[in-house]
């Protein structure tokens, strides 16, 4: 031991100069780097391309799945397609009503089966060619005939019999049966002269040749997987050019890092997926130059009851608790859920109490139960309802099923969603007071037990489109799987004849007002049957830098969200702030100087080391 210590102490004598030099060099490198880079952070950006370009950088959490409109399904990718290709129609930013897009007007035949669209003559592709009805017809026909091209949007053409373009400004779609969603065909129309050269639509990702030919408000100019997507303003866009010169979607895998980037000004906008957490929102609220937009969301957050899983062929499967087949039990359970507490405690105010199936932002379809219909929070009445239904409590206060065993409901919850777990705890408490125990099954993958019908209740939620057809369709009998082995389009195995009749009626109803009325009746039916208990509509919480974005259109414009709108309003309308200091990621000059300084120091250290080596070599023997 001693000997080792001796060696140690003996060695320090001829080394301090080297240690000091190392320390000095390190400190010097850090100083140089900070000195060189620091000013550039505040410096005006616009590096790379044209100096002075106004760049709007948006932090996104999702990676691009494909840049082909025939394949892309993720929100980010479809948002990019909204920006780069025109659709036949668009939705008004103010209240979501349908407005012209590539089509200026449309009408249906008396038999409701033929739709004729007038295609605008002032929309050009970015390569200079005219966008025509022929492009639209080709797009739809390709999806109808090539399964690969039907990957993303095949459902839109499922009911199409024939699509033709009798003239450059006229598109005719012939249907198999009437369909009310003909003004909500969210399909990007692509240029035929570019896309007809594609061999295999199931593999072509449209991500090799830039700029991509399009006719939307922006032109896709560059893409690097999991790094960024770069778009340039289309100066010839028929509705008018965007105010920012460039739009960049920058990929942040970690939401906290994205929030840090917003703080620093590296990005102009952060949305999160799907929302900033209450903690993030609160921490940003006091910041200078940052505005938090706490907007009504387009999602609902619900508790779904297993209505007895079954297939179209009538086979029953799964193991849902039979007591839940009694509507009184379902209603009682929902009367024992305090929605206000969920909004206040779980969502910390960043949500709205739920009731109807479609969130209030879609005002024309929004349904609210009438006074007598409402299943308001009333635990006493819930207990009474359960008693009436024959589910009484035993001497221990446990409520017994028809088989004499205590009721214990299994709730499927998403392990990755903290809201599910928190609400689950409340349910355990509230339903526990009714004498019902609750087991939370929090899983990474809830799909399997869900598809197999092996659950009693499940946390459920969907994003709703301006046209509610899809979220309504997933509760029709037609959506059930063909056999227990198959996978249907059903959300929750609901199959109710009255609901189905209403669904068919709304799909064939071309009068918007009448259709909305039927859609409300469908929601009323869903509410009464109690298979879906909509507890809340979570807000979309997002934030942006006011020193980079002066103004931006929300949707709905009165109080709405910015990211993931139905349309291109937010980014098309965004006005750069006067300071003009738009974001753009790094900064070239500062970086160059900073890194160069680092390199110089490293080279210096290398030389020093080499000199030392030579010195010790000389010392040898």
């Amino acid at each position, binding site marked *: *031991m001693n000997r080792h210590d001796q060696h140690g102490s003996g060695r320090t004598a001829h080394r301090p100069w080297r240690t000091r030099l190392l320390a000095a060099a390190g400190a010097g490198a850090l100083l140089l*780097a900070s000195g060189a880079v620091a000013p550039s952070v505040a410096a005006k950006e616009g590096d790379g391309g044209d100096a002075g370009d106004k760049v709007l950088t948006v932090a996104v959490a999702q990676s691009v*799945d494909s840049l082909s409109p025939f394949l892309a*399904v993720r929100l980010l990718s479809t948002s990019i397609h909204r920006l780069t290709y025109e659709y036949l129609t668009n939705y008004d930013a103010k209240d979501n009503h349908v407005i012209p897009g590539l089509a200026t007007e449309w009408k249906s035949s008396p038999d409701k089966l033929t739709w004729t669209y007038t295609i605008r003559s002032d929309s050009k592709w970015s390569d200079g060619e005219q966008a025509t009805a022929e492009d639209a017809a080709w797009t739809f026909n390709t999806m109808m005939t090539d399964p690969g091209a039907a990957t993303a949007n095949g459902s839109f053409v499922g009911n199409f019999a024939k699509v033709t373009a009798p003239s450059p400004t006229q598109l005719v779609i012939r249907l198999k049966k009437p369909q009310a969603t003909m003004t909500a065909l969210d399909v990007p129309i692509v240029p035929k002269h570019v896309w007809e050269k594609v061999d295999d639509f199931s593999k072509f990702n449209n991500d090799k040749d830039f700029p991509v030919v399009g006719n939307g408000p922006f032109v896709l100019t560059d893409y690097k997987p*999991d790094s960024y997507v770069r778009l340039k303003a289309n100066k010839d866009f028929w509705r008018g050019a965007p105010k920012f010169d460039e739009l960049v979607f920058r990929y942040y*895998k970690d939401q*906290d890092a994205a929030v840090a980037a917003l703080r620093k000004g590296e990005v102009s906008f952060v949305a999160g997926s799907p929302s900033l957490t209450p903690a993030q929102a609160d921490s940003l609220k006091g910041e200078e130059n940052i505005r938090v937009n706490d907007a009504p969301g387009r999602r609902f957050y619900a508790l779904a009851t297993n209505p007895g899983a079954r297939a179209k062929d009538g086979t029953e499967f799964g193991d849902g608790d039979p007591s839940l087949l009694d509507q009184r039990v379902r209603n009682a359970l929902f009367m024992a859920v305090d929605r206000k507490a969920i909004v206040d405690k779980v969502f910390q105010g960043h949500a709205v109490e739920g009731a109807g199936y479609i969130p209030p932002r879609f005002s024309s379809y929004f349904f609210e139960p009438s006074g007598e219909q409402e299943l308001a929070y009333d635990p006493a009445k819930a207990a009474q309802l359960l008693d009436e239904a024959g589910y009484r409590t035993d001497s221990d206060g446990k409520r017994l099923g028809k088989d004499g065993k205590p009721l214990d409901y299994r709730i499927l919850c998403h392990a990755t969603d903290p809201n599910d777990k928190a609400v689950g705890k409340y349910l355990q408490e509230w339903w526990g007071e009714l004498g019902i125990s609750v087991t939370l099954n929090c899983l990474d*993958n809830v799909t399997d037990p869900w598809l197999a019908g092996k659950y009693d209740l499940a946390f459920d939620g969907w994003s709703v489109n301006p046209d509610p057809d899809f979220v309504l369709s997933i509760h029709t009998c037609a959506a059930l799987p063909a056999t227990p082995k198959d996978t249907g389009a059903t959300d929750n195995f609901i199959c109710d004849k009255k609901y189905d009749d209403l669904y068919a009626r709304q799909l064939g109803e071309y009068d918007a007002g009448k259709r909305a009325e039927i859609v409300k009746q469908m929601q009323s039916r869903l509410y009464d049957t109690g298979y879906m208990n909509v507890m809340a509509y979570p807000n979309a919480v997002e934030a942006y830098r006011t020193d980079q974005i002066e103004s931006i259109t929300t949707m709905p414009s009165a109080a709405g969200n910015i990211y993931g709108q139905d349309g291109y309003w937010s980014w098309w309308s965004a006005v750069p702030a006067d300071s003009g200091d738009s974001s753009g990621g790094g900064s070239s000059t500062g970086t160059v100087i900073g890194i160069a300084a680092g390199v110089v120091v490293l080279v210096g250290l290398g030389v020093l080391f080499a000199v030392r080596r030579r010195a010790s070599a000389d010392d*040898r023997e």
Partner: protein
Amino acid sequence: MSSATGSAVEKRAPAAAAPRERARSAYPRYVAGKLAGAAVSLFAVLVTSFFLFRLIPGDPVKFMTGGRPVSAEQLAVYKEEFGLDLPLWEQFTDYCGKALSGDLGTSYQFHAPVVDKITEALPNTLLLTGTAFVLYTALGAFLGTRSAWRHGGLGDRLNTGLALTLYSIPSFWLGLLLIIVLSVGVDPIPGLFPTGGMESGREEGLAHVLDVAHHLVLPVVTLVAVEYGQTLLVTRSALLDEMGSDYLTTARAKGLRDDLVRRRHAVPNALLPTVTLVFVNLGRTVAGVILVETVFSWPGLGGLFYQALSVPDLPLVQGLFFVFAAAVILMNTLADLLYPMLDPRVGR
């Protein structure tokens, strides 16, 4: 004299007097054995990667289409397209056959060949983890040697204490901390580095290289801080085993300078455990460091693996798993092949 010292002497003696011819003649057989072992391992990985991920519950097609309207017919088309309608054994033979020809299938979510996705992300991961690897190995070995040579002293205690502390810090937490302090900036420290990503995407040529280097700093610092401790501790303990040896005393008695005794005599003999560790780490380098790649939004294999698992995108998961495992096997085999050169007793 402790028994540890005694064994060190014995260790040294045969190495010095190794019968070289015998070792050389045994080497080809040793190599053949190691290579065969590696081949068997690779095949086992291929089989495992196929069946292991079939155990993940869930219907991939349902996952892919979740949340959007899809007709039953379209679902059937997907199943056929990805070969999910075939019996399992047929899927397996298909998979093995294609894998042998370098085709790892098509990613469900990206509609692109798995090989393309991997070759796209691999260089990014290698850049990040490779740079960090060189730095933490050098730093760990350097400080480890220092610590052992002066063990028990203040420097040693500070060194090992700091290394252990950093080693036990979760890398994502340290990364976030660095982002807040060095990227966003906390008074009076200005924001020096980008918050994430690998490039600004505007520069070209030299400016691009420097831009990437600028983005590289924080993730590399995080990785080095968390990883160097391991090398340090292994080097330190290996060297400590050698410290009391007589041959070192002899070397000093010859009048050699202390750092020559360390560099020329002690360190080479203590190298084996460090070399093993270095190769194991080199294999792991390919797998990247998922958490660090996530915090710094680095477009590498780690992030890809996370995305693949969350679908689950079976072909991509399988492909990545195979590449990760193959890298470790390859590096371990390389280390095995190198040992006889470092220590002739190995492989005889």
